[in-house]
């Protein structure tokens, strides 16, 4: 029986995800490892000597948005992918960049209005930090699944994996960005939504709280789970 050699990257995969084999829907055979494109990680591997071993392992090609830039952020790339429609990555990336620009402008406006130094220090000016905080604040803890018992479909509260929780968070934020007037640009609305979510207010956070309330109301059905 073929046992996969436990490589560095696949060990990381194991600890994170328990559902899918490494292959999934990939065009590569399962023993191809994912590329390591970050400068820091590469220098670490060279120092520890792992790089010599990995150099002889077949590696997948790096995707176009897997860059060694110092501003590369996995979560932002994911957000761009979720926003993308019909494969129009250029538009999605443009929108996210304009969103980050708008976030900076709004926050700087707040910053300049404050007179007190201490309050100024508290204003977060890094758009990436705001996006991360917004996504964390909108992550739900449970979700509802429909389960049929005796001809009736009940909405049962069920625990949720981190990945799905993060996906739902980003999906709700994007939906909140899309709920806008005709004359308002998407990136402006999205920026306001993200800033609100980072402050634990706004439509996306409300959606999460509504979900939690619904789960709490349906807590009696939790026994219907088959797990």
């Amino acid at each position, binding site marked *: 029986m073929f046992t996969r050699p436990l490589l560095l990257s696949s060990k990381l995969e194991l600890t994170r995800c328990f559902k899918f084999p490494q292959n999934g829907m990939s065009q590569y055979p399962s023993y191809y490892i994912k590329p390591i494109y970050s400068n820091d990680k590469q220098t670490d591997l060279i120092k520890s000597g792992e790089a010599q071993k990995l150099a002889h392992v077949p590696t997948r090609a790096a995707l176009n948005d897997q860059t060694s830039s110092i501003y590369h952020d996995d979560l932002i790339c994911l957000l761009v992918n979720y926003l993308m429609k019909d494969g129009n990555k250029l538009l999605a990336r443009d929108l996210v960049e304009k969103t980050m620009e708008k976030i900076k402008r709004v926050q700087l406006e707040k910053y300049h209005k404050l007179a007190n130094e201490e309050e100024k220090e508290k204003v977060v000016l890094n758009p990436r930090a705001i996006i991360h905080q917004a996504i964390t604040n909108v992550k739900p803890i449970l979700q509802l699944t429909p389960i049929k018992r005796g001809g009736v479909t009940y909405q049962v509260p069920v*625990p949720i994996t981190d990945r799905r929780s993060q996906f739902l968070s980003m999906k709700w934020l994007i939906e909140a960005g899309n709920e806008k007037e005709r004359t308002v640009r998407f990136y402006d609305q999205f920026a306001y939504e993200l800033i609100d979510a980072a402050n634990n207010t706004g439509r996306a956070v409300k959606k999460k709280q509504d979900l939690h309330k619904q789960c709490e109301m349906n*807590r009696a059905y939790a026994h219907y789970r088959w*797990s």
Partner: protein
Amino acid sequence: MRILPALWARGNPKEPVPFQEILPLKLRPFVSGKGDKTSNVCCLYEMSLVFGCLKENEFKESACGREIKSFQECFTNYNKQKYITKEREAKGILTPGEKRLPYRQLNKLLRMYPNEK
């Protein structure tokens, strides 16, 4: 369709009815996996704790950090355990002295010691 034989029957059948060996008197050499789905629901207790805490604090998650963390840990541990047991089952490793064997392991055992006549 007990009705039809009853319609055709004439007179009372004599009890005791003589035994007829229609199918061979032999157990199946395998066990079906249908009954293996356990209905033990995980993390119900932790979930109820989370609900209680959220209700008290008007659904503010910042106040319920500990309960939420324990709930999430319970779920991740459960998933990890499930994956490990699934891997072990798929490989067919038999651990001696187990109380309840999954169907794959049982079938492997039965294949090792078949019922021969």
